[in-house]
């Protein structure tokens, strides 16, 4: 069975890389978008099974991205998990109301992140595997 595809929308390069390594090690294929504009194009191109979305982005924040995804029927069904440095009940409520499956505050505990991803994808646990050689591919 082929790996599930996850699109990471995150403007911080280091955080992006960290997510990449962790998710690769957990058998996911990972794609990236660095701002609101490119996220829609990347989503169309790769048709991911899940999107990890930061809220603070250049050129329109995560809420804008969610609105745009919702407007495209083929993309509207992709589950979204918000991973943000913003906190507070207001942001959480707004994100969940906009259709996010979950709202996680940075830094997210690895186990929690993976559990939420699995839940959103309807998966069971797989073993994490080392992926030293992948670090250079970004």
């Amino acid at each position: 069975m082929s790996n599930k595809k996850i699109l990471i929308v995150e403007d911080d390069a280091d955080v992006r890389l960290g997510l990449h390594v962790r998710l690769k090690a957990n058998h996911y294929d990972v794609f990236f978008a660095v701002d609101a504009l490119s996220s829609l194009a990347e989503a169309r191109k790769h048709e991911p099974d899940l999107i990890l979305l930061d809220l603070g982005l250049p050129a329109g924040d995560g809420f804008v991205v969610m609105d745009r995804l919702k407007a495209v029927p083929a993309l509207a069904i992709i589950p979204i998990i918000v991973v943000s440095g913003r906190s507070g009940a207001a942001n959480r409520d707004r994100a969940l109301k906009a259709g996010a499956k979950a709202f996680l505050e940075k830094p997210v505990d690895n186990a929690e992140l993976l559990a939420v991803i699995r839940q959103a994808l309807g998966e069971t646990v797989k073993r994490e595997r080392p992926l030293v050689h992948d670090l250079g591919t970004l």
Partner: protein
Amino acid sequence: MRNRALKVLLVEDNAGDARLLREMFITERPGSIELTHLMRMSDALAHLAKGGVDIVLLDMGLPDGHGLDTVRRARAVAPDVPLIVLTGLDDEALAAEAMKEGAQDYLIKGQIENRALPRALRHAIERHRMQAETDHIRMSQLQFKDEFLSHVSHELRSPLTAIYQFVTIIQDGLAGEVNQEQQQHLEVVLRNVKQLQAMINDLLEVASVQASKLLIRLERTSIVDAITYTVDTLQGAARDKGITLTAETGGALPDIWVDATRIRQILIILVDNALKFTPTNGTVKVQARRWEQDPSFLVIEVADSGCGISADKTELIFERLFQVADPALAARKGLGLGLYICKELVSRQGGKIWASSVPGEGATFSITLPVFSLSRLMAPAFVGHKYSESQITLVSTEVGSRMGWLSEKVRADCSNWMRDVLQRCLNSKLDVLLPDMGSSGATELFVVAAVTDEIGGEAITKRIREKLHGSHEIVQADLTFSTCYWTLPPVQRNADESMESFVEKVAAKIQESIDERSSSRMVKI
């Protein structure tokens, strides 16, 4: 220099004193002073409320107002108008008190020099203006600081995230094998990441406290549960330090009316603090009981056998950014925000917090929290309402799962949005949304609205059903619901009965009816 006339309001019931004061303005340039003289406090307040007064000269002994009360009332109506109190020779202490209440100055009758009065007025106005300006600057600085704090905290989270991600990547062996010594070093990094994370969270919390954005959701909750949760959570940390951590909640304690999450947060901060300042082999004890001073509160104490707090610090420690001076004790503990956050959280739930200590023998932190009372919750609905002729209808809505049980998280989410839905179906002036009245078993939520309106029950039930049928939360979580209503026999109010005792009687009936129904439901199941 001002050109228009200075508008002075003189509030003085003694005609002789008033005339003497009036004469003192005669030497002033014509048109520079416009004096209004009133004899009664009620007239003065009405005049102040209209605005346009530059300064008030207030006698503290009026037919309808006396002492500091006059100052408070005047300040309440016109906080921006400077005020000078007039007192007798033997009242200087009272005058000093008046200054604390916000008076700009005081003048002793019979000792006022002719030329000094207008000058005193102008100085008072100038001082008041400068004070207001300083306050304004302070407020905008505070606001700027909060925005800054909030912004910085958010920005700190990204680099911290990257550090956490890569430390755990190495630690988990995703980048090759790690030997034991390296593993220990990584533990240190990780521990510090967590400490930084806690500090950033504290900063954000303080920023929202300052901006009054802190959300408090009052509900009926058990203090014993909160204490048990806290002790369980921190038992590991206590064991690591060789400290005995115990809880004592003797006797049946009533439920409290607070935000359950916030209470846990407060207790965690207090117990965590106690553990920090208690040496190995020490003890930390959490106790709860009815408060002797006011039985409508519980008092919860966190007592440690640590170094204690010197008497002059027991209030200071609740100030923002307070840090213990002794570096040996403080080590690297955080930002000094924990107790400040506690104080804000406790006071916003109607309680108090204080510390007492015998240095060298330990410290005790006490908080008080309001006991849940159905009658207190219902009282507002009875104000100004001719209840005696109408009936009370109770509407209950139960939410359950097709699976037969609700997870803790679904229960919490569910009860939050259910309360929102119900609130929107009620008449806020007449109806009361009761807290989860419990005792219907672990499988369902049981929310009741007391309706003090004759025809309300059916209409409200219909409204709730419609709202819930269209609710996608219900569908998404695969929940079931049912709503029904029943009417209580009217409760008679005796002619000489106080509203308070009457509301208590009604509350008791409501409680009785709910208990009856939930126990019969339990039997059915």
